[in-house]
């Protein structure tokens, strides 16, 4: 017996068969070797070569969009996030100059909104935004060529509500490495032993009349109130990697004395000023683009909203380092602080407590004052 249900299923299958040839793989006209990358959540970055001897490739990535409620601080404040692959920021995607990225963007039907992706590293088509709009239940595949080396922001850009999607978590970073790796200004090769990827979010969480953060049944219901808070330009939270304290305590980043770490800092919406308390930026691409010589020995670097920057640092002294947005109000009161735990041998030459805190000696002017004695 043909029920209404089976009839519908039959229709659905027929539709699928009809459309199948259209959405199938297009012929690979590029005839380049392909490589598939499995992405990892920040602050980690998927394994990659720094310099490569191989020729250009097509590198395949897949990002799945997830709308979900997350907790953004230790008080349990809930927030409707929109994410690439479930993390804020979305995963970093690494390739080399001259490579092609073939990106599959999936919008599962459990989501409620259309999304797309604008890659600042890509050329044309609104960074891909014009060619990647996917409704819930759809996916799209975009190929673009990496023509400029650097770290670049990617973000969602749906018409009419771009800033809302971006400050709700839909942003990430692409790193295009020069084929022969990073260099200082004099052409000397630079290497990193480790890479950490930090995405900074300014969050705008609506409050009720009693000053309590509001919660919403769905992401859509939070839109109007959130936009109102956004328009005042004062974030309620400024956080690294999705929540206050996401990179502290057990989740603190680690390094050893002598290790060189590349710290990539990405901010899709608002200016920030990373600073490593107790350390420096040995080589800093403040604007994040590797064809420019890196600046040396920086104390704080400026990352413009809508860009990513990269800092290379070799740790010289063990201990706990705070890595902050050096608008310290944003770091301490709003959440933009992370920690590095650095193991190794203490170097007295760089720093030593000559005398521990002890009482101020009594004023002996005219008696034991060495100046008075020699006179």
């Amino acid at each position, binding site marked *: 017996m043909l029920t209404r249900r089976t009839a519908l299923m039959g229709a659905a299958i027929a539709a699928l068969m009809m459309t199948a040839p259209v959405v199938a793989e297009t012929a690979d006209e590029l005839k380049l070797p392909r490589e598939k990358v499995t992405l990892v959540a920040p602050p980690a970055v998927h394994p990659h070569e720094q310099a490569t001897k191989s020729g250009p490739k097509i590198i395949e990535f897949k990002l799945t969009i997830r709308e979900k409620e997350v907790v953004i601080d230790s008080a349990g404040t809930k927030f409707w996030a929109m994410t690439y692959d479930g993390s804020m920021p979305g995963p970093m995607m690494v390739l080399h100059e001259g490579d092609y990225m073939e990106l599959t963007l999936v919008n599962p039907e459990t989501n409620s909104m259309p999304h797309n992706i604008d890659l600042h590293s890509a050329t044309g088509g609104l960074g891909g935004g014009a060619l990647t709009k996917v409704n819930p239940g759809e996916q799209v595949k975009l190929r673009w060529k990496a023509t400029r080396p650097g770290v670049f922001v990617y973000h969602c850009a749906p018409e009419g509500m771009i800033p809302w999607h971006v400050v709700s978590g839909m942003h990430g970073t692409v790193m295009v490495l020069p084929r022969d790796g990073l260099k200082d200004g004099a052409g000397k090769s630079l290497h990193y032993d480790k890479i950490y990827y930090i995405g900074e979010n300014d969050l705008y969480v609506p409050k009720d009349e009693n000053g309590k953060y509001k919660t919403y049944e769905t992401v859509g219901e939070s839109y109007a109130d959130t936009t109102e808070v956004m328009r005042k330009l004062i974030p309620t939270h400024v956080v690294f990697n999705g929540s206050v304290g996401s990179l502290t305590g057990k989740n603190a980043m680690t390094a050893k004395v002598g290790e060189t770490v590349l710290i990539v800092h990405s901010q899709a919406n608002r200016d920030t000023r990373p600073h490593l*308390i107790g350390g420096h930026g040995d080589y800093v691409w403040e604007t994040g683009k590797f064809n420019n010589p890196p600046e040396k020995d920086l104390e704080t670097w400026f990352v413009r909203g809508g860009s990513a920057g990269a800092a290379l640092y070799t740790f010289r002294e063990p201990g706990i380092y705070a890595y902050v947005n050096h608008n310290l109000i944003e770091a301490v*009161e709003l959440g933009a602080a992370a920690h590095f*735990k650095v193991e190794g041998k203490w170097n007295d030459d760089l720093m030593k*407590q000559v*005398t*521990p805190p*002890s*009482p101020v000696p009594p004023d002996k002017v005219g008696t034991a004052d060495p100046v008075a004695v020699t006179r």
Partner: protein
Amino acid sequence: MLMLMKIKIAMLVGALAAPVLATVLAPPPQVDPEGISRLAPASFSYRAAGDFSRSGKPVEGPLRGLGSPTELLVMKRQVTVAEYDRCVEEGACPRVGSQSGRRDVPIVGVSWHDASTYAAWISLKTGVTHRLPTDEEWTFAAAEKARDEALPLVDPADPAQAWIARYETESNRSRPAETAPQPGGTFGTNSKGLDDLAGNIWEWTDTCFIRASLDGNREQVTNTNCGVRVVEGAHRAYMTDFIRDPKSGGCAAGVPPTNLGFRLIVERPGAAVADAFRKAVKLLRRA
């Protein structure tokens, strides 16, 4: 500010009078029926609070055997929003924080000054001296809930190791998932019948921060800073006295307490304290 200073003096008088008081055996005071526990005298071990050094190198504070010479009367639960609000309504205590609206949960977001002001006010209302506990008293009352904060021993030539060890200890502590204040009893009752010690609220004590050097068994205090008080909870911390939100009171790389609240010690009225108490009352009235 002037008012707070006066109350501080009043509290100091109360605290000084305490040891004298303890020996006076007066009839038990009429106190809030809902919550004073009487702790029988007993001996206990206590890790001294503060920064200690030996030959110029940081060491853990000395562990001491102490005895509570007499009964200690202490609140079973932390001071609640409802209790604190009465003091606010009478204009004696400052209104603090934005609360969840619940009145049966402990008051949090209070500074040492707020807690001390409340103690002075409730003393005046009841005619019975209430005060913050000393750190020794809190440790005695907390019993098995008090955590000995001895630091892991490290190579004294390498300050970073102690630092990292402390950071790891703090990071590995299990913390209650719930950060909002919970109704009394949520975090359990200890062997002395007191509730919610070392839950998600750190309690103010009256003990000042000290720096001391140790030489054999001799201890020399080189600095006392009463602008910083000991707070006790899941771990011991030192907090600037006007801080209400502990996240702002911590350093750049540590794990701060979750909430600041308090419970009080109740003194038996006696001749010595009555005098000190009257002085405190006078000070309050003038303020």
